[in-house]
């Protein structure tokens, strides 16, 4: 009981801290920046005009990725990634079900966190965007010509895939670190034997330079801490990767208290080039594993899932000079590297200050072998030796930092609910602006690269409260847009975001818009059940399985009358959209079907499974208002008794 009271007091204290800071700096009503005419002009994108930047926002618990325009804050698309998406049939169609396959079977959801756009020489190249599934550890790749998820790889030996999915300077690797350490391999053991027995896997997944194919190359088996966020070195620090850790206490219960006891946790600095070389020379241990690798083929319009059975694990203590710990105060969250690659910023989330490490100091300390002990055989560098400076911000709860490419950094402060602008090198605070409310991450287009486009910063807030018209207890999250071209940041817009954006990636519109596909070419459709000309449309029975090879074009299905289907059949509608015109999708839905509709793009084939349960005449129709004759785009299927002799026929216009 005594213990309980202590915890309760702590909680009340924390709550008081949170609310008092909110009062000091929240100041919601005082800010009406967006109402001033200049702010309105800055965000106004006139009808028919287009935005300057794409912003890809993670959907958090929606499992997906949303696409917005900046500065308008208009949402263009929700890209289904880890979650079933009835709007398009993703995860429901026969072709896309394999995308959500895992070693746990079909998992229809995930918690999508940190998108990162591919880079070449540290500069955004706009080929792909990657995002991590946090809950059932996975990494997804989205093709930025189709804005569709084309690959998902599961990460074995990982749990809470949080310090992910960040890429190296030339997209050599997309990196995924585990937040929760777990027994490796998984086994039945007492939870309280965590300490010293659990492992934290940091996974390096290679990205093939031509087609982007993912392959899990190796996992570094680190001590059982929590690996929170990570970022690549760039420029002179290219070849290194930095991960923040917390719970270096290795607590297994009531972490909010027990993982907050050490004054300093670590940033783990990984020389991945050394590890890569070690593995190339036969180093590491091949370990049995079971993880899914799901690949979507744009030409067959079909995903395949392959179970992989082996992974190479690496013991970091066996590679001298590969891994070091940089002491960093107060359970750091964000781990951010400035555009030059010199500064590594640890955002100690229980602190008022930011800790900035210097890459040059780190190398000097390593070369001078100035170690301050070790943890599980990994050398710890001296805090004072690697420290470049401390930003005395006056804020509370720094989470994440990005850069404008002009020598300034912008850090979010969750507890004091603000964005703070400060100067790299002098560590001087230049400006601070409130956010509404409790900001998590922020994003500057290219802000996590060697070449930021420092015009806007988007703050992604965790709490919305009164920012928009109320919609009951559940609200969308809220984002704020600041103009950062002047000395002071200017709040210019406020817009709701879908799901819970944990992070976002922005890119100049012209890098993507010109190569965005308009249609899929019918002549390149290699789907095994596609019909490439309407005269090939047909229905085939194979026992209780019926395959309908159907085509669709404005404004009819071929065929649209089908007879000879029986109760208990499994009817597969394989439907090919024969349009080759931009923005003319057709939909398909069948009455009483235990699945979602399909939305089929021009030139694409999708398959829907229907298991008719009752005799009768059952209509299907196009769900996308495709044309003036859309309402006429319908058909009927006659379902007869299981033992009937009605012959299988299929017709159009008879």
């Amino acid at each position, binding site marked *: 009981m005594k213990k309980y009271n202590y915890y309760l007091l702590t909680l009340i204290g924390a709550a008081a801290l949170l609310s008092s800071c909110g009062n000091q700096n929240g100041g919601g009503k005082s800010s009406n920046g967006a109402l001033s005419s200049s702010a309105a002009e800055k965000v106004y994108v006139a009808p028919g005009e287009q935005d300057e930047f794409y912003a890809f926002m993670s959907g958090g618990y929606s499992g997906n990725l949303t696409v917005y325009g900046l500065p308008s804050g208009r949402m263009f698309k929700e890209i289904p990634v880890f979650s079933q998406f009835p709007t398009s049939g993703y995860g429901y169609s026969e072709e896309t079900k394999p995308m959500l396959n895992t070693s746990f079977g079909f998992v229809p959801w995930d918690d999508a966190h940190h998108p990162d756009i591919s880079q070449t020489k540290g500069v955004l190249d706009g080929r792909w965007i990657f995002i991590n599934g946090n809950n059932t550890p996975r990494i997804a790749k989205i093709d930025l010509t189709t804005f569709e998820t084309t690959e998902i790889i599961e990460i074995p030996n990982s749990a809470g895939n949080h310090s992910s999915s960040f890429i190296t300077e030339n997209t050599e690797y997309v990196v995924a670190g585990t937040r929760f350490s777990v027994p490796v391999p998984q086994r039945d053991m007492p939870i309280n034997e965590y300490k010293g027995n659990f492992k934290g896997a940091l996974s390096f997944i290679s990205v093939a330079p031509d087609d982007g194919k993912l392959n899990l190359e190796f996992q570094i088996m680190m001590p059982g801490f929590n690996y929170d966020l990570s970022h690549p070195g760039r420029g002179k620090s290219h070849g290194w990767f930095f991960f923040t850790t917390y719970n270096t206490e290795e607590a297994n219960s009531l972490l909010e208290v027990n993982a907050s006891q050490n004054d300093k946790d670590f940033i783990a600095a990984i020389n991945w080039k050394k590890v890569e070389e070690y593995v190339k020379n036969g180093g590491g241990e091949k370990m049995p594993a079971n993880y899914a690798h799901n690949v979507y083929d744009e030409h067959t319009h079909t995903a395949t899932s392959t179970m992989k059975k082996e992974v190479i694990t690496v013991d970091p203590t066996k590679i001298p000079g590969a891994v070091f710990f940089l002491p960093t105060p107060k359970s750091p969250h964000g781990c951010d590297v400035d555009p030059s690659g010199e500064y590594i910023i640890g955002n100690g989330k229980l602190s008022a200050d930011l800790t900035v490490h210097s890459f040059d100091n780190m190398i000097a300390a390593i070369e001078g072998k100035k170690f301050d002990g070790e943890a599980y055989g990994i050398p710890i560098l001296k805090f004072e030796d690697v420290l470049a400076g401390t930003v005395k911000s006056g804020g509370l709860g720094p989470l994440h930092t990005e850069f404008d490419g002009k020598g300034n950094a912008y850090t979010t402060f969750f507890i004091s609910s603000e964005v703070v602008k400060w100067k790299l090198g002098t560590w001087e605070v230049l400006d601070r602006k409130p956010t509404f409310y409790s900001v998590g991450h922020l994003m500057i287009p290219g802000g996590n690269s060697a070449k930021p486009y420092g015009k806007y910063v988007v703050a992604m807030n965790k709490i919305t409260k009164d920012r928009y018209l109320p919609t009951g207890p559940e609200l969308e999250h809220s984002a704020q847009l600041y103009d950062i071209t002047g000395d002071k940041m200017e709040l210019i817009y406020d817009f709701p975001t879908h799901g819970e954006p944990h992070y976002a990636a922005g890119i100049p519109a012209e890098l993507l818009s010109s190569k965005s596909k308009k249609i899929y070419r019918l002549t390149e459709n290699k789907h095994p059940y596609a019909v490439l000309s309407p005269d090939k449309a047909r229905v085939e029975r194979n026992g209780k399985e019926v395959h309908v090879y159907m085509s669709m074009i*404005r404004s009819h299905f071929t065929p649209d009358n089908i007879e000879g289907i029986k109760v208990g059949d499994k009817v597969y509608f394989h439907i090919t959209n024969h349009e080759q*015109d931009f923005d003319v999708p057709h939909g398909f839905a069948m009455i009483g079907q235990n699945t979602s509709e399909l939305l089929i793009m021009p030139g694409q084939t999708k398959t829907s499974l229907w298991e008719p349960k009752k005799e009768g005449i059952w209509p299907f129709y196009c769900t996308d208002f495709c044309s003036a*004759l859309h309402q006429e785009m319908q058909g009927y299927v006659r379902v007869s008794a299981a033992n009937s002799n009605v012959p299988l026929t299929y017709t159009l216009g008879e």
Partner: protein
Amino acid sequence: MKKASVLMIIGPLLFLGLFAFPLWNIMLGAPQYPEPLGMNIHIDGIRGASEFDIQNIDGLNHYIGMRKLPKAEDMWEFSTFPIVIGVMIALGVLIGILGFFKKVSYKWFMGWFLLMSILGILGMYDFNAWMVDYGTNLDPNAIMKLANPDGTPMSYKPPLFGHTKMLNFDVTSLPSTGAWMMFIGMMFTVIAFYLGLKSKRQSTTK
């Protein structure tokens, strides 16, 4: 006369442009088609201004009962026109060469021009007749049967030259690169005739 003959050779050679560039261009813009659909009419067939335009125009036309746009093999014109143009080029160049060596008089230049003009007018007449047939000879079971205010069935004949509004479409029909080259080529032959006439007069006044 030498200058005139050179022009008489160059003029017909400009007609070679017809084998590379479209003769005529018809663009169809609509609210739903901010990037208009278009067809380029070449002497040997109709091609889309963009890759899938023909298919998409046919797709739209089926609502009003128009037939599909003809493929090259569907119309005799598309096999005949290249031959006629080829023969006329050869003939024109031959006349120019003979003129250069003073084997024929400048009057032949005008003769070629007049023959080409007659063929051109016949071609235009034929083209227009095809458009009339294509735009008015509609499927009686068309999805949309629209009538003019006076009750006569609406025609979808594109204009031969210029712009017209057709339902939701703005249709613009204009000569294209091939036609302009042809036009310039014909002007060259007229100038050739004029220069020939002038040098003849000069030589007679001397």
